[in-house]
């Protein structure tokens, strides 16, 4: 599935009113209301939408923005600029490269870990998956099923085992076997659970003992359907686990993932990947333009 297909499912509906207008149509109060609605319904924070709309209204009243397409383009540009400030490439600071996948329950960590492993293998790397979610019932089996389907090696923890020890051992195993990248799936945890966040902090620290400078990436997996709480999640995970990048999942539904703008704005974290479907190939590198176009579609 291509990114634009995955993101395009929701065109139509009330948005078609907004974007079905003719090119030369002038800006009206109704249009401004609809634009605001489109942004808010995409889960963009009201703290970003209100000032943004104030600017658009200003520019419209001074005559600098005259037509609907011009106004939409201006807003798209602002949003794309926000998403392209940071380097979205995958970092590597040594061998093996170490990637931790973290996030709240049900955001799609295990699936993301598997898809990322496939993507790296297809690019010529030799990834090693690590099932370090030793807490949730059958989480290990879930990643093992993916690993055998994709034919990617995996190191698994034992149920209720110490996740930090599993990751530590896996990095040593990767060294011995010559794997270029280690991708560790961690247990889902709510950012409000202090002791679970401490445990995650420990995994990050222990990783650094297995390889100087590791982890290279701590990817926070955010559910694309999440609302403003995603910002709280990102704050807390960044504080406790030094998040280096974001993955937004479940964008093949009708949600737009607009909450990410406030996160990028406040924490300066790059969005590295987007999850756009259930198949192994449905994890794609961030494409700011396609992401914003899904939010404010261009007329076909």
């Amino acid at each position, binding site marked *: 599935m291509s990114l634009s297909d995955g993101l395009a*499912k929701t065109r139509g509906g009330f948005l078609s009113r907004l974007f079905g207008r003719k090119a030369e149509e002038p800006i009206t109060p109704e249009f401004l209301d609809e634009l605001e*609605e489109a942004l*808010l*319904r*995409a*889960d963009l*924070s*009201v*703290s970003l939408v*209100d000032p943004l709309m104030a600017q658009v209204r200003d520019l419209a009243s001074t005559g600098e923005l005259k037509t609907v397409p011009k106004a939409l383009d201006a807003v798209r540009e602002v949003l794309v600029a926000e998403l392209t400030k940071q380097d979205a490439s995958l970092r590597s600071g040594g061998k093996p490269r170490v990637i931790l996948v973290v996030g*709240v*329950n*049900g*955001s*799609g960590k295990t699936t993301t870990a598997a898809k990322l492993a496939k993507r790296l293998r297809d690019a010529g790397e030799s990834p090693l998956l690590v099932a370090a979610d030793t*807490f*949730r*019932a*059958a*989480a290990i*089996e*879930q990643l*093992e*099923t*993916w690993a055998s*389907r994709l034919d990617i090696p995996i190191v698994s923890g034992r149920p209720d085992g110490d996740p930090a020890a599993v990751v530590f051992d896996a990095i040593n195993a990767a060294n011995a076997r010559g794997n270029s990248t280690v991708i560790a799936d961690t247990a889902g945890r*709510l*950012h*409000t*659970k*202090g002791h679970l966040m401490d445990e995650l902090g420990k995994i990050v620290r222990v990783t650094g003992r297995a390889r100087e400078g590791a982890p290279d990436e701590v990817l926070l997996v955010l*559910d694309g*359907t*999440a*609302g*403003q*709480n*995603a910002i*709280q*999640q990102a704050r807390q995970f960044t504080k406790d686990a030094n998040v280096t990048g974001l993955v937004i999942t*479940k964008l*093949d*539904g*009708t*949600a*737009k993932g*607009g*909450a990410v703008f406030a996160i990028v704005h406040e924490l300066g974290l790059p969005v590295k990947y987007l999850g756009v479907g*259930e198949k192994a190939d449905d994890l794609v590198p961030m494409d700011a333009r396609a992401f914003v176009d899904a939010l404010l579609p261009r007329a076909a």
Partner: protein
Amino acid sequence: MFEQLSDKLNVTFERLRGRPRVSEADLEEALRDVRVALLEADVNLKVVRQLIATVRERALGEKVLESITGAQQVVKIVHDALVEMLGGEAAPIERAATPPTVVLLVGLQGSGKTTTAGKLANTLRKQGRHPLLVAADVHRPAAIDQLRALGKQLGIPVTEVNASRVASDVAAAIAAAPAQARDTVIVDTAGRLHIDDEMMKEVEAVVAAAKPHEVLLVVDAMTGQDAVEAASAFKARLPISGLVLTKVDSDARGGASLSIRAATGIPVKLLGVGEKLDALEVFHPDRLAQRILGMGDVLTLVEKAQEAVDRKTAEEQTKKLLEARFTFEDFYATLQQVKRMGPIGDLMKMIPGMGAVAKQLPTGPEAEAQMKRIEAMISSMTRAERVDPTIINGSRRRRIAAGSGTTVTEVNQLIKQFAEMQKLMKQMGGLAKSGRLPRIPGMPMPR
């Protein structure tokens, strides 16, 4: 989860109360703040607009601008509008006239269906039912293993279905339930997108075969604006009878999931409030509106107490307490019961007016740590010392401190506080006997 929304609204209302009269500008400013607070809480945009329009209309209709109690009236109008949005009374889980009762769980990926299935089975068993779990998620890798593991933990049987005949296997599992003395069947289905036609057809077929009495839509409380869209799509194709909100123990303000009730009419029935298998609560919409507006939730607190506290023990202890026969032994038992009710901070927030106080108290990890130290000290006492603390001399104090990893000063403090409490209780006991102490509703008092 609703504290932050509550805090935001209270700031608005405080400012409003500070005005001698509510001017039209004051009202508009308050409404703007309410709008932002609701949007930040992920309340659906349409619902927000409707709510604001309702409040404005009623406020002008009731002439709050001319009234000296205008601010109070506005608060009440917002409260009533919120209660209307959330719906009225709690809606119980259906029970079929002829068993087995069939409950089907559906929802998006990662919303928490499998965990909810386990929790619901556990809850219904506590109510005297005999549940059977049916693992019908044949799509997510290891989802069936997950439900099987939960069933094993709970000691509740799990029936699995074959991927090639999901609907007929579910129907067969239901038909076989009475023979296994199971009166309630809980079916866990695969997570699916509401716009995935093929997957929606699959679950339609399961519903047609299972003829469920309840189809519960499981929704992540952290969901944003999309919640209403997804719920409407599910409702358009399936007979959704209720909502289960999960991950309520996050700090999500839960607005989107709550606006599902306002936008689709589906009542919220249950709340998932933790990772443990007993962390499922009945949802009380009226109480929630009060909690959002900082009015406390005494009923939930009382229910929690009733669940956690063995009534007979409690009555016995209250009696002892008032007669000053309350020992460290009893104190220890009480501590254990309070612990079962949950973190102290959570309990405080349910008491009206205590929301603000709770924030200043050493709650959370600090308070829990303090409780642990007290527990450790009491555990380090001998039985004789617990029954009669007066025998605890200097060398005994040193031994207790060493045994519990605390200091002699802390042990001294505990014994002193305990003695003072006994004295106070003795006085209260006298009052109670003379009938001058008001009885606290819901609390056992000595006869």
